[in-house]
C-alpha cells in the first residue's frame, strides 16, 4: 500500500465510515447495499494480500465458502446467535487458511497463485462430495433469521441487518488498516518490495506471509458469514472458483493501494451486475474488458484514476 495514509485511524477510515452510512441512502435498494458490503469485505481479503504482501490469490472463495457454510450450520443446527456464529466462522477461516497456507507459502511467485486456485477448486469439490453437510448442488437452506446476540435485535428487520453487516464490514476494514499501519505491516510491505532483502534483514518471509494469508482467510470467511446472514441460504456457488475470481476482480478494479479500493471495486462490480445483467446476460465480458484496462493502464485501479489523469502512471512496485 502507499506510504502515505499509513496511520490509523486516518482520513480513509472516516471516508469508509461515511461510505457505509451513505450507501443505503444513495442506492435504490437495501439488498444491493448489503450485497456490496459482502463483496467489499471479501475483496478486502484480496486487497490485504496483494496490496501489502504482493500475493495474488485466486482462492479467497474457499474461505468465503467455508465461512458461509460454518455460520449457516451453527445458526441452523446449533441455534447460535448471529454474532457468535460470525465470529466462529471467521476463526474457522483463519484455521483453514493457516493449514492451507502452510503448504501454499512454501512455493513462491507463479506456483503460489496456481496453488491458491487449486485449493479453491478442492474446496468446491469437497462441498460437492459431502452433500449431507453442505446440501450439495441444492445449497444449504432454511437458515433462520436469528437475533444478533442474547436473543436481542432480530435480523428480520432489513435495516437492522444492513447496520449489523456494516458494523462487521467496518470492523474488518479498520482491522486491515490497523494491520497495515503496524510494524508487522511494514515488514509485509518490505516483503512485497524485495523478498530476498527482507530475508537478509532477518525476517522470515514465509512466516509473515503465512500470518497474512491466515488473516486474509479470516476476513474472507467473515464475508462468507455475512453472505449467509443476508441470504439465509448458502448456494453451492458460494465456494466455487467464480466467487474467488469475483473477490479478486472487485479488489483489482477498485485498486489494491488502499482498503478503500475494495469498497469502490465492490460497489462498481455489484452495481454493474445489478443494472447490466437483466439487459445482457453476458455482462461479464464488460468486466473482463474493464480488468484488462485496469491492468494495462490503471495500475492503482479506479482509486488511482485521478493520479493517472494528473501524471503518467508510475511503475508497479512488485515487478
Amino acid at each position, binding site marked *: 500500500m502507499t506510504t502515505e495514509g499509513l496511520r490509523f485511524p486516518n482520513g480513509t477510515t472516516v471516508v469508509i465510515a461515511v461510505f457505509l452510512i451513505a450507501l443505503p441512502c444513495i442506492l435504490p435498494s437495501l439488498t444491493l447495499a448489503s450485497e456490496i458490503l459482502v463483496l467489499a469485505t471479501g475483496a478486502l481479503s484480496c486487497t490485504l494480500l496483494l496490496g501489502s504482501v504482493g500475493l*495474488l490469490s485466486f482462492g479467497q472463495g474457499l474461505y468465503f465458502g467455508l465461512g458461509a457454510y460454518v455460520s449457516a450450520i451453527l445458526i441452523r443446527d446449533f441455534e447460535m446467535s448471529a454474532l457468535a456464529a460470525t465470529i466462529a466462522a471467521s476463526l474457522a477461516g483463519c484455521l483453514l487458511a493457516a493449514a492451507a497456507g502452510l503448504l501454499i507459502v512454501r*512455493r513462491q511467485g*507463479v506456483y503460489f497463485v496456481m496453488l491458491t486456485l487449486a*485449493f479453491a*477448486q478442492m474446496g468446491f*469439490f469437497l462441498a*460437492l462430495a459431502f452433500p449431507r453437510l453442505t446440501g450439495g448442488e441444492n445449497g444449504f437452506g432454511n437458515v433462520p433469521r436469528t437475533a444478533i446476540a442474547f436473543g436481542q435485535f432480530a435480523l428480520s428487520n432489513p435495516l437492522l441487518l444492513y447496520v449489523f453487516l456494516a458494523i462487521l464490514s467496518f470492523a474488518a476494514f479498520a482491522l486491515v488498516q490497523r494491520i497495515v499501519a503496524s510494524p508487522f505491516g511494514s515488514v509485509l510491505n518490505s516483503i512485497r518490495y524485495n523478498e530476498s532483502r527482507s530475508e537478509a534483514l532477518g525476517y522470515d518471509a514465509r512466516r509473515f506471509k503465512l500470518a497474512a494469508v491466515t488473516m486474509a482467510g479470516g476476513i474472507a470467511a467473515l464475508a462468507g458469514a455475512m453472505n449467509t446472514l443476508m441470504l439465509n441460504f448458502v448456494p453451492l456457488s458460494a465456494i466455487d472458483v467464480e466467487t474467488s475470481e469475483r473477490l479478486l476482480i472487485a479488489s483489482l478494479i477498485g485498486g489494491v493501494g488502499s482498503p478503500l479500493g475494495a469498497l469502490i471495486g465492490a460497489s462498481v462490480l455489484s452495481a454493474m451486475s445489478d443494472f447490466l445483467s437483466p439487459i445482457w446476460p453476458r455482462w461479464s465480458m464488460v468486466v*473482463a474488458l474493464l480488468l*484488462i484496462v485496469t491492468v494495462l493502464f490503471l495500475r492503482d485501479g479506479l482509486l488511482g484514476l485521478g493520479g493517472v489523469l494528473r501524471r503518467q502512471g508510475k511503475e*508497479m512496485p512488485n515487478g
Partner: protein
Amino acid sequence: MSAQVLIFGALNGVGIGMIYFILSVGLTMIFGLMQFVNFAHGAFYMVSAYAAFAIAQWTGSVLPALLISPLLAAAFALASERLLLQRTYSLPHEAQILITFALAILAQESVTMIFGTLGKNVPVPEIFSGVVIFGGFVYPSYRLFVVGIAVAVALAMWLAIERTRFGAMVRAAAENAEMMGLLGFDSRKVFMAAFAFGGALAGLAGALAAPLRGVEPLMGREALAIAFVVVILGGLGSFSGALLAALLIGITQSLMSMIWPGGAHLMIYGVMTMILAFRPTGLMGRS
C-alpha cells in the same frame, strides 16, 4: 473389487492422464520458454472442444476435428499473442496472469453466447465406438485411440525439441532470449511459434476429450485447474514431470470414480495436497 476391474480402471486412467498431459505440456512449455503464465490455456482447450462439437454436428463425425480444432486453437492463441499478450511480456507475472485470465473470461462468455449455458454431448467417432478385447480385458477402442495419439504426440514433441533445428532454437530461446537475438535469430518468432504450438496442444486435448466428457462453458476453468495441479506436481518447464503427474492424477481420478464417484475430482486435489505435504517442491523436487 476384482483385479480385473482395477486394471480396467487404471487403463482408463491412463487415457485420461494422457489427455491431461497433452493439455498441460503446452502450459509448461510456454512458461519454460517465455516465463509467461497463461491463464487462458484452459480457454484454448474449451474453445477447441466446442469447435469439435460444431464439426461433429456438421460432418457427422468428430474425427476431422482432431486436425481442425488444434489449428483453430493455434490461430486463437496466435491472434491473442499478437493483439494482446505480447504487450504484457515486459510486465510483471501478476499482470500477465490477470490479462490472460480476462481473456479466458472473454472466451468463455463468447462461447456461452453462441452455444448456450447447457452442456452438450459429442458422439464418439463411429470407427472407434466399439471395444477392443485383449486377454481377458475389454477396453473401449476410443480410449485406446486417445492413448495412441497421446503417445505419438509425446514422442514427436520430444524428438522435435531434442533433435531438430527448431527445437534447438526453442531451447536456446528458453535459456537466453536476448543472447539469441544478438546472434541474429528472431526470438519473437520463436515465441509466436511456441504460443501457436502450445495452443494447438491444448486444442488437441480439447478435441480428444470432447467425446469422452461432452462440452460445457465451464470446462475450460476445470481444465486450467487440472493443468495447474500437473505443473505444481511436475514442475513448470519439465516434460517428464508433467507426464508423471498427469498419469498419476488421471489414474487417481479413474480409480476413485469406481470407488466413490462423488469424490473422484476431489481426490485429484487430495493427492496433490498429500504430495505437497511430503514433497513441497513436487514430484521432481525442483522449485
